[in-house]
């Protein structure tokens, strides 16, 4: 077992533990903090996969923006669940069983795939991935159209967020 593999296993265990905490902890704020931990874990794994740019984006976008927004929402909706109520759906056992079944069949199918155990070759260090990514986002023969659509999408979300959240009495 190489050092990278040990790092991977440690980070993966941490990420999964954090993910379990997100869905199992009772208090929203604790869940939100666990979510940040899980997102950091994913960022480290991006870095291990040689995708430094997305490791940074993960930290900046997911943790810096999305998780912080979630924490704001948690603070704005304090005491939103009545404490005497269970936090679980009534049918959660069936849901858990169903997903466990699906999960094991998925992994079983995957384990039959040969490429599953392949170790990826090392990346060519001479290729500047960020430049390639940036150029292809603005290249009409690349991803310019999806890029434009995403910009419209963000505008729609902006308009919608303002419309939904603005003060009702001032309309």
């Amino acid at each position, binding site marked *: 077992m190489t050092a990278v593999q040990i790092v991977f296993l440690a980070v993966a265990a941490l990420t999964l533990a954090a993910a379990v905490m997100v869905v199992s902890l009772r208090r929203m704020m604790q869940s939100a903090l666990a979510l940040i931990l899980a997102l950091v874990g994913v960022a480290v794994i991006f870095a291990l996969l040689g995708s430094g740019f997305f490791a940074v984006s993960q930290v900046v976008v997911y943790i810096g923006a999305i998780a912080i927004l979630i924490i704001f929402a948690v603070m704005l909706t304090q005491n939103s669940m009545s404490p005497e109520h269970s936090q679980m759906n009534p049918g959660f056992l069936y849901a858990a069983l169903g997903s466990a079944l699906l999960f094991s069949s998925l992994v079983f199918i995957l384990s039959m795939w040969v490429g599953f155990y392949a170790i990826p070759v090392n990346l060519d260090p001479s290729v500047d991935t960020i430049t390639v990514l940036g150029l292809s986002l603005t290249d009409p023969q690349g991803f310019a159209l999806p890029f434009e659509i995403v910009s419209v999408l963000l505008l729609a979300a902006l308009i919608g967020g303002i419309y939904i959240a603005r003060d*009702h009495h001032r309309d």
Partner: protein
Amino acid sequence: MPTVNDFLLILPEVVLLIWALLILLIDLWIPDTKKYYTAVLSAAGLVISAGCAFALLGRTGSAFSNMVVLDGFSSVLSILFLLSGLAAVALAYDYLKRNAAQRGEYYTLLLFSIAGMMLMASANDLIMVFLSLELLSIPLYILAGFFRPRLASEEAALKYFLLGAFSSAILLFGIAWIYGSTGHTDFPGIVASIDGGRANYLLLLIGAGLLLVGFGFKIGVFPFHMWVPDTYQGSPSSIGAFMTVATKAAGFAALLRVFLVLFPAEAPIMAGILWGLSAASMIFGNTVAIAQMNMKRLLAYSSIANAGYILMAFVPYGNPVIAQEAVSSALFYLLAYALTSFGAWAVMIALEPAESDGLLLQDFSGLGRKYPWLGAALLISMLSFIGVPLTMGFWGKFYLFKTAVDGSQIPLVLIGLLTSLVSAYYYLRIVMFAYFKPGEPQIQPGRWASVVAVICAAGIFVLSFIPTPVFQFAAQMIMGMK
């Protein structure tokens, strides 16, 4: 550099998006008392975009290095989306005024959503499918909650949002596995990889299954339907009407294209799943609808059943001959369903008072005598839902059943026929209330909803005399697909 041709092929979408941005700006200077200008402007935008789509009819090609394709399938659906948008604007104008929610954002977001649908029908890359799905959904989440701070509307929006995002996540996970299987997200690349034997079958199958679940939520078939009744009931009625028709059509557009182009080899396995989804939706939608006394919920369950009918023709899609027929009959049925559904919703919106969660069936009592035109529109819509001859609904079901028979899906056709008989009970009950029960329904101020109802009813009736040319047009249009 992008060529002129690239932009020409997506001209309707570009026009619509630019128009939406202009409306957003112009609306700032339109005073609250004159919001009909915004409605008229957005209708004009839809008409211009539809004009562009008509002009491009029959043209084929791909733009932006295979991100989108233009073919008959996407052209016909684009026109359907734009006309649905026109109906949604017409239904909204008086309705929003009645409910004191006359805001320009409604029209901007509606136009964004329609652009997303049009892109979805022509998407030729899985990333484009995902992004256009989001572009159509995110404005709809807000439109569903447009009547905030009314609780029903907010809850409808939250439920729609949570389940919509859930389905997007599943869809995205599926796309990731298809990428893993083939190394591509663009359709030509995926097809080349599959044909070249480089694609991994197992991963592709996992991806196809996840994609089916994701689309299943969007079209609202049986096990993935939980959001449908609540969202349709809590949303503004004009948006409920728009969602039953246009969102469903957009979901089917992506489903048909993705499965026909990418997964013909998985057809034997997928056919069984599609069979189950279709049969379960027809049975579930039609039986639960019987118990509904609220018109909006009834139409919601009827929409689940109708999704099952459309899926029925698509079960034997692995057979290329049947697949052509299935797509053209699905297109034809979507047109018939659009007219019928808008007709029924429009009658309801014409009568629906402010702050209501949808009319009860009793509220239609006496409609036929007091407002003969509206009563007739309701009658024709209901007959078309059942599939009685002399309506578009009959021909829609006829072609769907015929396709299913050609694909030797006899048990499914029997289920379809039997559930249609069951559905006759609850559709005719509405007619019974409207014509044989005494009552004094009151039409709400504003005539646009009534106009839409009468136009749709007329369309259902008149087009039923020329079904074959319409069907052949649909069939001819999809010849260029793939």
